């Protein structure tokens, strides 16, 4: 039976981790996290015999928009040892995702994320944590806080021209990213999808330097190729990394880029047709072997990867040849 602490006991526990001016006078205590909007800053949550002090709601960067507050994801302090945690409370969300004209059903599944957390506990390319039920049976995920930037931000912050980036930094970025692809391959081998592969769903752990996948609670209703959508995501991130960002037709037009006249429809992303995938046309020093991999994600491709192993094999071959 979990012990529940009194207000004064809690204050004493918190005083070990926070300066006196930051310690609230009274705490609202939650054992049931169903109403996650009601779990707020300075509240205390009891979960599986442990006590967490809630800090901020997590935010997610949206392309071109203000950060979106994720009210079901809370930063927290584990009061037993002062470590920073992320508590993901249960938010059952079903939605129809759309890529281009293609619609497919998705949902957030705490169970899926909990399963994967158990599966990847020994892999340094994933976030780590465990799941625990609250008093109402909600499956809360308690995640280790990862200090570090999203991969997307890291790449965009590199203040240098593309050629310097490509020769001096991209090889290491690619090696790290290939570890991420291997990690996704590991999931697929175990019958799991990541479900939401995006450039900002890889955090670069500033302590270890490892690239780590986060946020794998989304499941999608797959069709024939169970991992096709994950693969599409992996390809998009790869193109982003090779290009040091998205290479948009709009920007090329704006700059009056000399290569623009050589770019045709087949050179664009198979879904996001404002993005150039045939990067060799813009950056001629991109090797053919790498560009060929990118082109499998283009509108003009005649062949798409059937599985993650095929993508990895192509990348390993070109890295070994380098």
């Amino acid at each position, binding site marked *: 039976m979990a012990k529940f602490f009194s207000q004064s006991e809690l204050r004493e526990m918190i005083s070990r981790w926070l300066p006196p001016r930051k310690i609230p006078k009274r705490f609202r205590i939650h054992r049931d996290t169903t109403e996650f909007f009601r779990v707020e800053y300075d509240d205390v949550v009891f979960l599986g015999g442990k006590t967490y002090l809630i800090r901020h709601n997590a935010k997610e960067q949206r392309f071109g928009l203000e950060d979106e507050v994720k009210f079901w994801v809370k930063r927290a302090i584990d009061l037993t040892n002062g470590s920073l945690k992320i508590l993901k409370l249960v938010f059952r969300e079903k939605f129809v995702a759309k890529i281009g004209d293609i619609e497919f059903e998705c*949902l957030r599944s705490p169970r899926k994320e909990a399963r994967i957390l158990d599966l990847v506990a020994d892999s340094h390319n994933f976030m780590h944590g465990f799941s625990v039920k609250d008093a109402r049976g909600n499956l809360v995920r308690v995640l280790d806080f990862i200090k570090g930037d999203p991969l997307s931000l890291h790449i965009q912050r590199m203040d240098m021209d593309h050629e310097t980036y490509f020769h001096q930094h991209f090889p290491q970025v690619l090696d790290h990213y290939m570890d991420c692809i291997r990690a996704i391959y590991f999931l697929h081998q175990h019958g799991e999808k990541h479900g939401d592969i995006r450039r900002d769903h890889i955090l670069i752990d500033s302590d270890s330097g490892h690239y780590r996948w986060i946020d794998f609670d989304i*499941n999608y209703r*797959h*069709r*024939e190729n169970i991992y*096709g959508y994950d693969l*599409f995501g992996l390809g998009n991130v790869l193109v982003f990394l090779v290009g040091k960002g998205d290479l948009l037709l709009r920007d090329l037009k704006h700059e009056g880029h000399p290569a623009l006249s050589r770019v045709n429809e087949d050179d664009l992303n198979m879904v996001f047709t404002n993005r150039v995938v045939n990067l060799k046309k813009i950056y001629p020093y991109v090797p053919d072997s790498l560009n060929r991999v990118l082109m499998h994600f283009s509108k003009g491709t005649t062949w*798409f990867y059937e599985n993650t192993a095929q993508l990895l094999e192509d990348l390993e071959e070109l890295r070994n040849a380098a």
Partner: protein
Amino acid sequence: MTADKKLSNKYILIAVDESENARRAVSYVAELLGGVEGFEVTILHVIPLPEEDFFLTATEKGKWLSKYKVRIDAILEEYRQILIGAGFDPKYVSVRSPTRYCPSMAECILAERDEREYGTIVVGRQGLSRTEEFIFGSISSKIVTHARNCTVWVVE
């Protein structure tokens, strides 16, 4: 099953779902072979065991499966009647709706073929866009690519 059947294209598997394309595949076989002796047809729908993540409880999943099976069995019977109506001997038209764990429907259909040794597989073309086919895959394309020791008809 006799040794002859194992080698015969006359032992036909029509793999169907709830789509119009599947109905067209059934109608095609009915028009082409109705009244011709010597053919035996199985109409198959593999019920994919849904992922547990899509249901809150096992009971909910069980209910969904039962409803799905009732709906599919009605469709299979309707398709069976199309073939019988076209002149197939009812003795030689059967239906199957097994429930399977199916990460790939094409592989599940091909597993059925391997197990029962049909000589011909008939499927409807899904009419997917190229992008859709690349990202989400196509059952008919995969069957065409991976089928061995049998003939595949893809009906437009």
